[in-house]
């Protein structure tokens, strides 16, 4: 069961091409997926919608972060427009569902596809500019999309720029509790995760990595830059659009203020902390950025009330700012210890145990 590489021999092409060739990796993945699927069970028994909502938020963020990592981490095209792309997906889904009565799965797919098209459009500058210059071009995407959504009443649905949608439902099954909505998000998250893992080891993924490492060299070995750069934008935006549409169905409202510039930067932070160029890293990053502030808030409050007996309200200003301080310190700490992110840290752990107990 815990065979290492040296003990595993593939006897068929299928076995060799599997996503996880090691039984250990396969089993770990199975266990993690099973745990994710079973996660709501204890929470349902405790009727704890609070923790469930946190888990759902993290899964939602992870989808967006994986998408951004495909573009920034794998293809090397910096984008500060993730929030805007999520906005496009969110509004597409809301318009389709609220005005045309489309089911949610169609809204999610259409949200992804529309956003992919918009992403291609804003990816065109990437053919001429790179690095920080491209970052500024995508910043323009953020501002332009935000402005358009805000000022075209047909899209925004009026001065309030918000469109309500009904609870998503499938064959009469309504996702009307926090637990049911978690499953909706979880399924999409798993598809997104394994989709990305497969994508990056395919021809397309290798082309992305070649472009990231040196675009001229990639072009010489036959990677069509035009095609693959735009494809990277399309795929990444598709993920963003799906995440945005899911946000809409999760909150049951599309509102651009969920996806402002600060959110785009938050997503960049996720993939940098999690690890550029790693699908798992994007997930780690999403967990870090979404979970830590809340966890800090919960612990700080309970320490202040439980240990020192000071009601939170009396020292709220200090504690609230203290959390920001701690959160910032944590980011610096993790990045100093391992600049390549949490995913690389996880690699270190795995490598250590690969030789354990005979490490030299």
């Amino acid at each position, binding site marked *: 069961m815990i065979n290492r590489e040296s003990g595993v021999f593939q006897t068929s092409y299928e076995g060799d091409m599997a996503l996880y060739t090691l039984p250990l990796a396969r089993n770990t993945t199975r266990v993690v997926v099973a745990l994710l699927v079973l996660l709501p069970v204890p929470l349902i028994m405790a009727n704890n*919608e609070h923790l469930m909502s946190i888990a759902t938020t993290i899964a939602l963020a992870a989808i967006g972060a994986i998408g951004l990592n495909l573009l920034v981490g794998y293809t090397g095209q910096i984008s500060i427009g993730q929030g805007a792309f999520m906005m496009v997906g969110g509004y597409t889904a809301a318009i389709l569902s609220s005005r045309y009565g489309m089911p949610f799965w169609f809204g999610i797919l259409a949200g992804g596809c529309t956003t992919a098209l918009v992403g291609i459009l804003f990816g065109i500058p990437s053919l001429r500019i790179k690095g920080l210059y491209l970052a500024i071009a995508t910043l323009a995407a953020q501002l332009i999309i935000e402005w358009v959504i*805000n000022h075209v009443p047909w899209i925004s649905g009026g001065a309030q720029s918000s469109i309500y949608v009904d609870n998503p439902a499938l064959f009469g099954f309504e996702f009307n509790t*926090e637990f049911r909505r978690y499953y909706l998000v979880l399924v999409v998250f798993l598809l997104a995760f394994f989709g990305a893992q497969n994508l990056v080891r395919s021809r397309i993924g290798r082309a992305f990595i070649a472009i990231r490492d040196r675009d001229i060299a990639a072009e010489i070995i036959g990677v069509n830059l035009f095609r693959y750069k735009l494809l990277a934008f399309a795929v990444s935006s598709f993920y963003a659009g799906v995440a945005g549409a899911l946000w809409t169905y999760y909150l*049951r409202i599309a*509102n651009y203020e969920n996806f402002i510039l600060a959110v785009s930067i938050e997503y960049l932070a996720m993939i940098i902390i999690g690890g550029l160029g790693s699908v798992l890293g994007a997930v780690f990053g999403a967990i870090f950025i979404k979970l830590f502030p809340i966890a800090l808030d919960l612990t700080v409050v309970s320490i202040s009330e439980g240990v020192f007996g000071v009601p939170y309200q009396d020292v709220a200003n200090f504690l609230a700012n203290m959390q920001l301080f701690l959160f910032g310190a944590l980011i610096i700490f993790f990045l100093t210890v391992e600049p390549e992110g949490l995913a690389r840290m996880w690699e270190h752990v795995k490598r250590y145990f690969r030789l354990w107990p005979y490490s030299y």
Partner: protein
Amino acid sequence: MQSCFATKWFGVAGVLVILVGAGGLLSADEIVVGGQCDRTGPTKFIGTLLCPGANDYIKLVNKKGGINGHTVRYIEVEHAYKVDRGVEAYERIKREGGVATVDYGTPIVYALTPRHMEDKIPGLTPGFGRADAADGERFPYIFPVAASYWSQAAAAMKFIKDQGAAAGSKVAYIYYDNPAGREPLGIFRRICEQEGYGCREFAVPPPGIEMAAAVLDITRRMRAEWVVSHLFGKAPAISIREFRKNGFPLNKVVSLVWGAGEMDMIAAGWKNAQGYLGMQFAGVGRDFPVLREIISMYEEEGQEVPEMVGQVYYNRGVFTAAIIVEGLRLAVENFGLPVTGEKVKMGYELITDFTLGGFLPPLSVTAQDHEGGGWVRIYETKGEDLVPHTEWFQGYRDVVLDELRKAAQE
């Protein structure tokens, strides 16, 4: 035999634990309510004043014996004005057994509206969120209670009319270009047309620090006689300075509620803000019975009374908490224990002519009108104080109600 004994004792102990636990639950005469706050995000200058106001009022109520003998536990959750943290904050309050919440921030109110409906927990959204939530039949669990942006704009137009604006008067509306800023546009346009004013709108793009051109346009090209200003954050202070720089009389500028705090005057300089007219939905200053009680509470505890007591946003916090407590009181008195979200909702809807000793307008909330009438009062900046310029008043109620009807039909 020995083991039998042990089993028995364990059994007894178990039963006792269960009994004590159940008793604890039953005798919990505590009522839990929760409020969100932003002490570290973009609106921290409001949050750090507003939230202590709410806390102090709840503390005062508990000190005076609570609500018919039941203490109120007020949970404050920080969300830094982020939507996902806002959802988390709401869920945490719900988890703690909160029967009523205060939602903080327009985008968060939008995101939480479906949850309030689903969970049947009434959300108080004073001065935030969508104006059409005033319609209690469409949004049964959302209570703006304070004047909505629609009512505020209508009241500003009424004030202008009372001050002598007539057909042909030039009125400028300068607004922050976000949903909250755009919300009153419909009302503004309609009243302009109705009264025959020459109106123009000026959008200030976020983050609202660049408006020299817009103000120049208003003062020099359009030569507006009146300005209705609806700005947030740093923008009001900047607008005051710009109007001042262009020699525009500030007593012709009427600001809606989020551009009328002491912070704005301090940032612009009190000297520069003289005459500026700001709209309020709660009283300003310390000269109210409820604030005197809070001050004496501080004094009894031997603490220094913070400077913020009596300031605009602090008082709005007191206002928010006062509405919650009044709703809870009516719920307990009319519908008994245990208090649930539905009872609090009905409690809110029983609020009639609630003024808290002149601190508030005569608020009356009904099942149809969750706004409480849309009362406001205009304060003028004089010296280093905000002094009342008008009495409590409502403006163009017919227009606002008609817009609500239209919104409901859509």
